[in-house]
């Protein structure tokens, strides 16, 4: 039991369950199949985005270009199908390829120059988003194949959308990566202490480049999933990813300095954020209040998570900068 309490996801899980019970007590519609379906949809999309940021947080960096990569891939994917009449699979693979290339560029430049990833990805954010706007001139692509639309809207059974399949698989794979493979452990080791891990013979180049490639790949998948969902390829896809991409991992206990992330807790963070924003709609919060509510909810969520760690951390630290 006390072991369970130590887990980052435990507190969040508790908050989610209790919160859901309370909400559905006041608004039974909250647990209606359609609502659960909608909830799962928004969780699906943000899950991939959060994972894409999480892996970069793991190595102690930030990727500001997550949304720009997602947007570029989304419009490439749809553009290839609409303008060049490519069928879904090739378009998809090219999309994934673009994500990988973007990630590679981020990682390679970061590690080879030693410049902070924050700066490099800030620059590539402009570059990727600039390409997106340059290509589309702000016009959406509309001709999405039926199969893609179907994937974005159909349900497997009950309220469970097809769209959730890929994010769930990704979450599982990420868990395996971060907890059961040497690559993932090396990433965390690198995030913990760059110098030490280099002294241990862990290759910075490999770690940083792989992390960014995975991040780019996930952002690409995120972009294409949003296309499935929205049924159009607008250049704005990804614009609103940045904050939620950080919020979920951090609510899940990730430390921005690196070396500590929790895949399950991040997933719970995503769910929590989705529930909060949905609750605001369900309870018909006055639009003027919505922002204020969101702000307080983020603070409260982080505090709850934080309180648990509080005593432990104080034992080991004079002053926490993490």
């Amino acid at each position, binding site marked *: 039991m006390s072991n369970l309490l130590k887990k980052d996801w435990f507190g969040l899980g508790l908050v989610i369950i209790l919160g859901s019970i309370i909400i559905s007590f006041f608004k039974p519609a909250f647990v209606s199949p359609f609502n659960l379906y909608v909830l799962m949809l928004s969780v699906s999309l943000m899950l991939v985005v959060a994972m894409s940021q999480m892996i970069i947080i793991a190595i102690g960096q930030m990727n500001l270009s997550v949304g720009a990569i997602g947007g570029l891939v989304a419009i490439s994917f749809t553009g290839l199908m609409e303008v060049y009449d490519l069928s879904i699979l090739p378009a998809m693979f090219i999309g994934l390829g673009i994500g990988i290339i973007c990630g590679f560029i981020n990682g390679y430049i970061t590690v080879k120059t030693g410049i902070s990833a924050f700066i490099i990805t800030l620059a590539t954010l402009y570059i990727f988003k*600039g390409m997106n706007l340059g290509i589309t*001139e702000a016009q959406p692509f509309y001709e999405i194949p039926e199969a893609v639309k179907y994937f974005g809207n159909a349900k497997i059974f009950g309220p469970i959308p097809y769209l959730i399949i890929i994010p769930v698989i990704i979450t599982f794979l990420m868990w395996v990566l971060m907890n059961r493979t040497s690559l993932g452990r090396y990433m965390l080791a690198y995030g913990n202490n760059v110098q030490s891990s280099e002294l241990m013979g862990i290759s910075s180049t490999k770690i940083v480049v792989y992390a960014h490639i995975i991040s780019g790949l996930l952002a690409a998948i995120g972009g294409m999933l949003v296309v499935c969902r929205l049924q159009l390829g607008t250049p704005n896809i990804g614009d609103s990813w940045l904050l939620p991409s950080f919020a979920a991992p951090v609510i899940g206990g990730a430390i921005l300095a690196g070396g500590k992330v929790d895949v399950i807790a991040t997933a719970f963070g995503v769910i929590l954020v989705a529930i909060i924003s949905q609750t605001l709609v369900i309870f018909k919060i006055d639009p003027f209040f919505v922002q204020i509510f969101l702000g307080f909810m*983020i603070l409260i969520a982080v505090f709850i998570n934080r309180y648990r760690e509080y005593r432990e951390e104080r034992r080991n630290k004079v*002053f926490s900068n993490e």
Partner: protein
Amino acid sequence: MKNKIPDFVKTNQFGLLLLVIVFILLFTFTTDGFSSRFNIYALSRVVAIDIMIGLAMMVVILTGGLNLSLGALGVSAAMFGGWCMESMGIPISISIVLILIFGSFLGWINGYVTVKTGVHSFIVTLATMSIYFGFMTLLTEAEAFRKLPEAFTDFGSMKLFKKYISPLLLLSILTCFILYYLFKFTDLGRKLIAAGANPDAAELSGISVSRMFIYCHMLSGFLAAVAGIMLTARIGAAIPSMAGHLGFDWLLPAFLAPVIGGTLLSGGKVTVFGTMLGAILVTLINNGLYLIDVGEFWVRFFLGLILLFAVLLDRAREYFTSKNSIVS
């Protein structure tokens, strides 16, 4: 030891200064209108505000944190100022003092919550950004204050030096000098930097790290409020959307200037003039790209490329100078 390079040349600022000069020359000779009076004046106003925003972010980056609420805070302060001047009829000078106090107070909230909870300021200010902005829209109902005293708005369109320069730019440059003095020549400034560089060591050396962090956030709020005032004067009205939704439009200039200027994101290092030059460089490039006519949809793309190029060049300079300083 053969050719000794002067210290200044080794700094990031020098590299930036060179870049700024190169771009000025480039744009002057390749575009129409870059050196026109209208354009220079317009640039001076944009730069002034971007410098101020960059400084406001820089002083929080100093602590190893970030202030995402910068834009929301600046707009809230500006709206508060609009209310003071228009609805309450408070004289300009007193209003400005009140705005600055208000901005510092919002900064204090950021700092206090960050320090007391130990949560990273990235998250704290993410939340306060929503809260400040939310309260601002709630209280103003998104109505602008546009009947501001003329003496105030005239300041925003005043032209100095044969109508080439806005007084706003002088204000920003003056602020740079004051901050430079603070960080270089005062006990307090040194403590702020030390606290940011290694909180544990600073605390055990008798510096109250919590207080220093709170000061940094207050200073950030103060500077954001100044930027808010400047923008209000420039636009001639206090408008809820003047920094975009949630104040987001300020964030990119806020990051770009200090980061290009050589401020370390992990904290403990400030480069006041670097930030100033960073802001100038970005504004210059942005302006030049519009003038060169790359096609507006591609402006961002080229801006990104040039930024990348600028930081890579800076790294090359660093490499070169450290090679040259080895004793032989």
